[in-house]
């Protein structure tokens, strides 16, 4: 079985009439964004992006608006043609596919969810969900069976025969999700699916999405402008700025070890309670200090700060951190704990 589902290598996208020339010049001379704009009247959308997405993981791409993340995700199913670089999905070079092959890949292997739902207003919920299947030429009975099942997966039993306009925003986006799942794709592309929703509904849908992905194990590329969301959902996170990827890592890596000031700014306001673990902030124990900390409670090294706080409240003593075998390996004083919560100043 393949391990890597999506692979991007040096992908560039330049918008403008003379994109090809601009690309050549960029490759040779290494022009900056503003130089390209001045010389070719072209705008760089994506600059030299490479990453791999592993089978079954949720890969989040986080960036502010205009950072090129929505452009990037459209390269995966070639809704936008890259100016340079290589895009590989499930081991196939997307750029080499013929028109029918590309369509087949889109309708069978890749599902997509859109920021503004993009439901078809003239079709019922059932027909919306069945749309990818209809394009594939499935018989109607099969279409109905699958759409009913997928709708039940997203918790919309009994809404099959409504029209999208009769549903709330959150429900509409669940229809969008169901539509993406209907063709049982191996890859899910989600373009800021929850950002148009109210905070409360967004939270609900995030939870539901986590549950669903645990159940279905779809490789997911998830775009968001909300770092909280990226951290909540992502197995790994890529942070984008001005068309470039600034940092790729797990949520904890990003939070505890930001690559530059830009990322640090983002991370600053993120609550570390659930993201940072005891072994990251502890002071390693030197020598034999068992007696010194005899009254201290013992906490395992992979408990998060939240748990440490819970324990620390019950005792006046510092906490002793133990490894998997129950051996004392470090100590966390209250001062250290507070600094840890602040983000390790």
């Amino acid at each position: 079985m393949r391990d890597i589902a999506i692979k991007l290598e040096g992908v560039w996208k330049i918008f403008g009439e003379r994109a090809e020339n601009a690309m050549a010049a960029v490759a040779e001379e290494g022009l900056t964004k503003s130089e390209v704009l001045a010389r070719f009247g072209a705008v760089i959308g994506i600059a030299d992006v490479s990453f791999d997405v592993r089978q079954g993981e949720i890969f989040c791409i986080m960036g502010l608006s205009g950072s090129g993340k929505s452009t990037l995700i459209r390269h995966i199913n070639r809704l936008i043609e890259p100016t340079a670089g290589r895009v590989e999905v499930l081991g196939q070079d997307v750029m080499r596919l013929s028109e029918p092959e590309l369509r087949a890949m889109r309708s069978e292997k890749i599902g997509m969810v859109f920021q503004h739902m993009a439901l078809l207003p003239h079709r019922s919920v059932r027909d919306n969900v069945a749309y990818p299947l209809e394009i594939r030429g499935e018989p109607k009975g099969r279409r109905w069976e699958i759409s009913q099942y997928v709708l039940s997966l997203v918790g919309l039993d009994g809404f099959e025969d409504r029209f999208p306009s009769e549903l709330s925003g959150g429900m509409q986006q669940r229809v969008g999700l169901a539509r993406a799942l209907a063709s049982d794709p191996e890859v899910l592309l989600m373009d800021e699916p929850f950002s148009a929703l109210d905070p409360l509904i967004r939270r609900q849908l995030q939870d539901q999405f986590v549950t669903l992905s645990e159940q279905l194990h779809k490789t997911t590329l998830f775009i968001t402008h909300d770092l909280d969301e990226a951290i909540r959902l992502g197995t790994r996170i890529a942070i984008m700025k001005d068309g470039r990827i600034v940092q790729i890592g797990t949520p904890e890596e990003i939070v505890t070890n930001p690559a530059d000031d830009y990322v640090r700014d983002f991370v600053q306001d993120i609550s570390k309670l659930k993201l940072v673990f005891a072994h990251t902030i502890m002071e390693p124990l030197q020598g034999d200090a068992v007696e010194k900390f005899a009254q201290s409670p013992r906490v395992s090294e992979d408990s998060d700060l939240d748990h440490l706080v819970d324990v620390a409240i019950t005792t006046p003593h510092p906490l002793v951190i133990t490894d998997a075998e129950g051996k004392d390996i470090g100590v966390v004083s209250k001062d250290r704990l507070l600094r840890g919560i602040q983000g390790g100043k």
Partner: protein
Amino acid sequence: MIDHRRENRSQSIADAVPHLDIADSVRAFAIQRGDYYARTMTRIQSHAGFVAIFNWGAAIFGPVWAAARGLWGLFWCFAILELMALVQLSQGLFSDLGAVPRARAERLEENYERVLARVQAARDRGDETGADALARNADRLQAALEKALDQAQEAAAAGVELVIFGLFAFVLIKGIEGISANIAYEKRYSRWRADKRVRAGFQWTGAAIGAGFVALVYSIALYGFTVAEPAAFVRTFPVEKIYYEEIAASIDRAFDLATIQFGVFFNGIALGIRFLLDGLEVIFVQTPWPVVMVAITLFAWRLAGPRVAVFTVTALAYIALLGFWEKAMETVSLLGAASFLCVVIGMPLGVWFARSERAYAVARPVLDLMQTLPSFVYLIPIIAFFGTGKPPGILASMVFGLPPIIRLTTLGLREVPKDVIEASRAFGATHWQTLTGVEMPLALPSIMTGINQTILMCLSLVVIAALIDAKGLGYDILVALQYAAKGQGILAGFAILFCAVVIDRLVQGGIKRGKGPR
């Protein structure tokens, strides 16, 4: 939320999908013959392509079945197709297709026999030459007679062809009906799932209406087409022409009476318009042409920039070189008078309609009507009251040109943001101050668009008004149309076109300038 499903960690959705049985819901939809439709629709849904299942009920009852099942689109198709086939069939079967040639043959035969008798009589008298001439006649008649008889036979034989063709078409149509019925009904069922307003089941009212329509239309149509000489009332509306003439005459009388009674009023209006028009004609027609030309060009340049000015010069040169100058200026005067009056009357009306919901509710259908009506129709009441000539032409143009300016003034004023008006009121502005200082300037782009449309509308009618003697360029076109003088017509047509484009560009330039730096 759906935690209970966690345990069945299936990778593939396709394998996990449970079977869906639509039979019950189809039964609820079809009601009558529910089991049959449950079966057929399940079959149709389980195949991707075309599924042929013959519905005997639909095939036999055709349009009536469709009507009963609420498939009205199908009903119309079936009814018309069947009717066409049936007409062929019944013409072949019952209609005396050879009747016309046979009647002629009989007539010819009579003549032939009469001529033969005369030949005999001539021979008896010993008038050989006369007899020969008559005999030649008789031969000719005989030939014609034989031909007619042949034709009659042929036509009668064609009857068989018609029967075969009609029968074939009928059976074919029935076949199509039977096969398409279930597919169409399944589509309807899918729609019913999402939209419960779609009527379900077998509707007796639908069936009755369908059957009534089919019975009535089929019988009359078959009667009308089959019987050689159907009763007159079937072919033409059974009404005497007298109604028409009487009513037309009384309308004439009413108009004449009104014209006499209110002569002063109508003459007053005509006089006022004439006065305005005379003023404009002095400016456009009587002022030396170089002055007018320079003025227009300068105007174009100031309002719309050098490119439009160049175009204007070209257009004016064309008009002048081909000798249309005076007529074009006459048209422009007419147009000026008409659009001036439209703006002067239309803008206050527009303001009023923007203010008063009730007035607008009354006026809107009238405005719609004014624009829907073919422009020629206006000309009639106007010539009735005002006679022919230029002032009536202007009046007719006004009827056509008023709606856009009224409509767009109202629209523009209504689209002024409510908060801006509120702000103006909050500072103690009077209605008049709000209107002139806030609403009008904000509605100006829309009003200017209205003026532009009004002018173009007026132009198109000023040209048509040549029909009632309003002269100008339209007259040339009219003459060209009447004598099919294409060259002349095209030249005049271009002159009008240039007028229209120049005016349009000028007004649009004005609009852009009015928007200014804002």
